[in-house]
């Protein structure tokens, strides 16, 4: 197993790099798949690992999209004038301006979303269970409405960003690798994080928060940090999505609570909450089912998607990984040791 693991990861990395060449017609689809994977993994940090089911993580996606766009525009033009012209006028971005603006925008988006997650966490982590879920959903909807009435950022019409300065196909490669890069970094980060004491603490909060409090854990601080990290990545991919879409508007694209906001939750439920691979597997499965039904069952796609959700919730409540864990507990390290064995190695 120990020899197979690096081989497996190397093969996976090769596949990730080669994917847009192997399926050149599906570059944008694959980029979207990465978006789903990243959103699912970040959602699982609070929903799966910490037991706080947020229905409002889409807020960070939307906020990230707007912050990245505004910062990106502001390095070359006055934002108010730019958005009011709405794609008209002569607003040209040089290649340097485009990439510099995007780069700064993405960093700003991540940091901004972390900050609002920290503040929102202070207010919303007072609530538990369904109250937290509804509270976050309310915050996301309110944010969308607020932004759609804010003329400086284009109001209900949204923002039109400059197009990728290069040929159309290269742009598709660029966005695929940008999403994939963030996804790989996030995976490596989470793989490390889930072995730390911090992860054990947030798992304790999920399993019995009162006990965790009685043991003296800094529960509120840990919850805020978790959500802030999660929001950091969501903000960045929100920003990337904005540049990839070129034009976005507040309610249907940026703060799309009923589509992407719910999809990420479904992906995690499908794959298995509270596991490293569950959200990834769930996102792949969900995306494939979604695209297949959109292509072959047009008109019935929402029904098919609904059926998938119902089947998951009724028959696979712990998702695919949870189902596996119950089928094969020994794969997940459960065992009785009768002889006083050697002291266990610290988890890698």
């Amino acid at each position: 197993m120990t020899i197979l693991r690096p081989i497996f990861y190397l093969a996976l990395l090769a596949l990730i790099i080669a994917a847009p060449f192997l399926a050149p017609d599906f570059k944008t689809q694959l980029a979207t798949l990465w978006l789903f994977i990243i959103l699912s993994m970040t959602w699982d940090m609070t929903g799966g690992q910490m037991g706080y089911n947020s229905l409002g993580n889409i807020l960070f996606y939307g906020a990230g999209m707007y912050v990245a766009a505004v910062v990106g525009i502001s390095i070359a033009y006055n934002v108010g004038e730019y958005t009011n012209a709405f794609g008209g006028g002569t607003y040209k971005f040089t290649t340097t301006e485009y990439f510099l603006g995007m780069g700064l925008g993405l960093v700003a988006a991540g940091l901004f979303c972390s900050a609002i997650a920290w503040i929102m966490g202070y207010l919303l982590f007072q609530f538990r269970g369904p109250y937290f879920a509804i509270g976050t959903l309310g915050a996301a909807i309110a944010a969308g409405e607020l932004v759609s009435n804010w003329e400086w950022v284009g109001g209900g019409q949204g923002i039109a960003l400059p197009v990728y300065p290069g040929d159309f196909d290269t742009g598709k490669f660029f966005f695929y690798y940008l999403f994939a890069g963030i996804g790989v970094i996030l995976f490596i980060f989470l793989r490390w994080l889930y072995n730390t004491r911090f992860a054990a603490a947030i798992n304790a909060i999920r399993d019995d928060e009162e006990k965790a409090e009685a043991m003296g854990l800094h529960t509120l601080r840990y919850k805020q940090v978790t959500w802030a990290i999660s929001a950091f990545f969501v903000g960045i991919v929100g920003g990337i999505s904005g540049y990839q879409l070129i034009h976005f508007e507040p309610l249907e694209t940026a703060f799309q609570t009923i589509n992407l906001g719910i999809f990420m939750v479904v992906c995690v439920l499908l794959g298995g909450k509270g596991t490293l691979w569950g959200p990834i597997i769930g996102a792949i499965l969900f995306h494939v089912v979604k695209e297949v039904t959109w292509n072959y069952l047009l008109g019935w796609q929402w029904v098919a998607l609904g059926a998938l959700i119902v089947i998951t919730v009724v028959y696979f409540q712990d998702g695919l990984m949870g189902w596996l864990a119950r089928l094969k507990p020994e794969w997940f390290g459960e065992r009785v040791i009768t002889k006083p064995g050697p002291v266990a190695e610290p988890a890698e």
Partner: protein
Amino acid sequence: MKIIEVHDVSKSYGGVKANTDITIDVEKGGITGLIGPNGSGKTTLFNSIVGYHPIDKGSIKFEGNEISKMKVQDIARLGLLRTFQQTRIYGDMNCVENMLISLPHRKMTLREAFTTNTREDHERAEHLLDFVGLHEKRFLRSGSLSFGQQKLLEFAMALMNEPTVLLLDEPTAGINPTLINGLIDRLKRANSEFGITLFIIEHNMRVIMNMADRIYCLAHGELLAAGTPDQIQGDQRVVDAYLGEH
């Protein structure tokens, strides 16, 4: 030296007076017992000390500082820890994971929380699991253990947290009688070897008379008697309270 000073504490739930003017001291480094018939207000007093609810009047001091207005986590972070009458463990995790979560987070900075557990942490976890006799079952889901074993695990978790004072709510309830002697021995060793002050609610008279240096007896929410185990055993009021004469 007194480590916990409860002075004149009252607590009522609606019209029910759960505690009336209770004054109790817990000596540092000792084992103090709290007995009394069912419903006499023992757990209410524990909950008042660890901050689960505000008290109506009186003062509670820990190491000389007033804690009666503090929140549960803040009191726990001072090193005053409690176990629950209805055992609380993290049922979906195995015993070792339960132990590692119980590392004293109050002594940890946020940066230290973002590190993996050291070899010493693992060794200490295994050592303490061995101490309570759960070494063989350490990689089993803790929720699958028997109630008595879960109680032992909760005790081991409390020790892992390196508390100054440990409040135990009926540590032997639900434990197989043949294991009770072993548990008494372990509680005593936790006190003598690890230097943890113990404050114990117990119904099993044999257990508490065997361990405690000083015993307080509650009845109907009031302090009925206090003294050494011998004094308590010889106190007619205590005997009456248990037999329903009070």
